[in-house]
């Protein structure tokens, strides 16, 4: 029954100081929907809990002058959903963030926590990868940026350095004719962990796909950016042959395991199915605008 300290710093510098000082015994608390479950089950026993929700930079959404967005790492899914513009520009990212758990969980859970939890199956991660989101991290040695796909290191692990805190996500401005989407496969209609999750972001000009990114989750130790799938789509009219090629690229990228949530064969097959479905939604959104 080790002593636990709870800290709720008001500034990022204060948070970083406290977090770094506490070393490996410290845990960041954003929405807490993973941390509290891990604490209750005995998986983790933090000595210090650093609640980052009193730090303005980590709890605000900002539409930047270039039309991009900066989302604080601790912004909950419910708050993101209430933003007047975000869901119109990045509907796929929003639906991914809001597939994390129940309405109750969405009231707390954040994209930052989802990424730092390091689960290969986190719903928001493939969508953020597809969006080309970049995260700002800050630690004792200052600030740096990382691509979202560079953050996960393996199940439960990230490439953040000791003492570093994920501060925010930066999503780029959207060229005209862009759309994104996220789909996942779960056995029920809600409340499950993704068996496969796919985020797709597209730009379409005159019927031709000019830019694409594909993020793939739950089929490898980390969520993946599937560049061959994007390449298969770019320059095409998203015809059946292109979709099949992209689906094949997704299947080829899978390095899944058999577990209680799905089999290797099922996950590989599903990755291809979902690629096609997700592209269709993203393309519809891109051309509707």
């Amino acid at each position, binding site marked *: *029954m080790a002593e636990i300290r709870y800290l709720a710093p008001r500034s990022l510098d204060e948070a970083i100081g406290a977090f770094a000082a506490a070393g490996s015994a410290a845990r960041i608390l954003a929405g807490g929907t993973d941390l509290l479950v891990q604490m209750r*089950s005995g998986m983790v026993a933090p000595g210090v809990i650093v609640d980052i929700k009193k730090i303005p930079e980590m709890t605000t959404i900002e539409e930047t002058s270039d039309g991009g967005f900066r989302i604080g790492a601790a912004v909950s899914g419910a708050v993101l959903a209430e933003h007047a513009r975000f869901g119109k520009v990045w509907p796929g990212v929003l639906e991914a963030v809001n597939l994390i758990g129940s309405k109750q969980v969405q009231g707390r859970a954040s994209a930052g926590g989802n990424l730092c939890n390091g689960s290969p199956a986190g719903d928001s991660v493939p969508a953020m990868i597809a969006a080309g989101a970049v995260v700002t991290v800050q630690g004792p040695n200052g600030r740096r940026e990382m691509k979202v796909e560079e953050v996960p290191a393996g199940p439960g692990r990230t490439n953040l350095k000791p003492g570093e805190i994920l501060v925010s996500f930066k999503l780029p401005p959207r060229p005209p004719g862009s759309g994104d989407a996220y789909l996942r*496969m779960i*056995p*029920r*209609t*809600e*409340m*499950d*962990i993704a*068996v496969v999750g796919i985020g797709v972001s597209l730009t379409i000009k005159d019927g031709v796909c000019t830019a694409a990114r594909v993020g793939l989750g739950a089929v490898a130790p980390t969520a993946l950016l599937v560049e061959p799938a994007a390449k298969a789509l770019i320059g095409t009219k998203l015809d059946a042959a292109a979709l099949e090629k992209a689906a094949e690229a997704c299947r080829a990228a899978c390095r899944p395991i058999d577990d*209680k*949530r*799905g*089999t290797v*064969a*099922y996950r590989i*097959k*599903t990755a291809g*199915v979902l690629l096609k479905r997700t592209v269709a939604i993203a393309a519809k959104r891109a051309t509707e605008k």
Partner: protein
Amino acid sequence: MNVVTNNKWIGQRTIRPDGMDKVTGRAQFAADFNMPGQIWGKILRSPHPHARIRGINTSKAEKLPGVKAVVTAKDIVDFPIEKGAVPLGIQDMRWMCRNVMAREKALFPGHPVAAVAATTEEIAAEACKLIEVDYEVLPWTIEIEDAIKPDAPVLHEWNKWEGKPSNIVGRLEHKKGDIAEGFKQADVVIERTFTTRPVHQGYIEPHACTISVAGDGKTTIWSSSQGQFMVRAMTSLLTGIPQSDIRAIPAEIGGGFGGKTIIYLEPIATMLAKKSGRPVKMVMTRDEVMRATGPTSASRSTVKIGATKDGRIVAARGTFYLQAGALPGSPIRGAAGCSFTPYDIPNLLSEGYDVCSNRSKVAAYRAPGAPIGAYAVECVMDEVAEALKIDPLDFRKINGAKEGTKASHGPVLPRIGYIETVEAAKASPHYNAPLGDGHGKPRGRGVASGFWFNAGGESSAQVNITEDGNVVVTTGHPDIGGSRAAIANICAELLGIDYSRVSVIIGDTQTVGFSNLTGGSRVLFASAMVVTQSTEKIIQTLRERAAKIWNIDPEAVKWENGAAHPSSPNAGQFEPLTLAELADKAPAMGGPIGAGVQLNTQGADGGYGTHVCDVEIDTDLGIARVIRYTAVQDVGRAIHPGYVEGQLQGGVVQGIGWALNEEYIYNKDGKVDNAGFLDYRMPVCSDMPMIDCIMVEIPNPKHPQGVKGVGEVPVVPVMAAVANAIYNALGIRFYSLPMSPPKISAALDANVKQAAE
């Protein structure tokens, strides 16, 4: 007994007496109760599926500051195996004492081996870690097919099957006619083997109790269960405290579905309380509930049905292997006994085998065993009907059991409503509606029937007229799904007073007479009988009191609309005397008015249902969704239709979960790999359509209101109805549950591959 007609309250959707407390958060469930000075109990559980316990050293735990008591199997009364069965209801105390606390061996991961009470939950948990258990780890077996192999590790060396130590611990057989002769007459014979996985009752309220043992041994148990008298009896047997000293107070119960017909915590908490001198509270975590309380059996069933060209079943055979878990007692009676009962089959052999293995001991789950058997039988029924090119409902009607049919499990059936359920299903809007367009997703429709025994048994009630002329009814069955409302309907009806004047409460073990479990779909059947008889006695008293006041013969007084009236003008001219007036005059006219009745109720007829299910399949992902469902059931008489429908709807949705996603998954170490709601995957609200109900009312002639049990039948046909619907959509039969996306997807792929070859 007179069947009440022209009802005012029976059949009404009244507001349940306990409703206000439940929608405001005031109702006290097991974990909501605290006692002054209470401490917390925690259990140390075996990490091994199978291990001999060579010794337990609790000294370090006892020395931890804050620890007030430690108990092990030494503190629980032993029921030695060699001394023979000590039955309590359907349980045997030899198994119960070993289930509550491992004795010679730990038999599953999660099996309690010791327990600690300390001033906080954290200290108790910490102390558990300090207990040293010397285990001799043994080879283990979980799945039925492994456990029945000749070289399987044997859990109970004393058990012999065909002369050798074995995990087969019981067999049951129902036989009728000569199946060899019967199958010879058949034009179509279909035999299939089916498997099902263990599924948990999934009650949302974990097991919990708070227990005080005073210095003189007087014990108070506050816990939620499906029977406070079962709690008292088992706790008494396992602790040695006489029943007269144990007051078991039934908390509101947050779901049971059979899983709370046995106890886990109460004897342990009682011994911790006794040793520490402090009230002890224990609350299971969800993880403990999933690992260490009984899910139902996994099963392996082979069913063979033969029929003639004209659609008559001439012979059937069923062999049902059910997984009991650590200790004997799987519901083979439900599987082997119920599955063929909807049908009149001249030649039949139905066998059940009880198989022990290293998982938690099975507990009852809604119509225990019957859904497992019905899944196999009703799927084969579908195949036979298809082979004969007969509508599956017509096939069931042709062979339907009726009054006078000799059932496979023995009795000659009374007037039953099975065929009426088939007819109502056939005539239902659902069965006659087109499947509709799935927009690329194939749709299919399936039907299935089911039977459950239903139970009567012991019940007690006390009905008292209050001094202000209202009514308090006390019964002894925990109310799990609205039974208080139905009892109030009946009492108000009989007394001819407003429903709001009847209060219904559940008494504790020391304030109401013995009442058996809330289980077997028996509560309203049995309670209505004792409440009716009590109320009739009261009405007799009220007539006598009025007669005395009017100075006429009691036979000349009738009771109507809540008042005594002269039965005819010949009896005299008197102003009616209301219940309130008679209550007011009670002290002068002979004293308090009340009556109690205690019976071992008889005449509970079995229940039958027929279901229609539509599914839609995402063939690319292998996801089956139920899009429409109709449950038809002979409910006898729906005293409170809202709660009868609720039983049907709830049972159906549990069955859909069983059919599509729910299952226990064991890892390579023999531990449950999905011991939580997240990965156990019970149906959530967005998974389900509305569940339509058709209540066929064929009153039970042996019951004053015509009541038949309704709670268990609705889960029985479901898995087969879903499987048959999936077959109808895809042309693929599934012989194992759950029909989860990877399984459906793999079957579709295999089909495509086969077609290509």
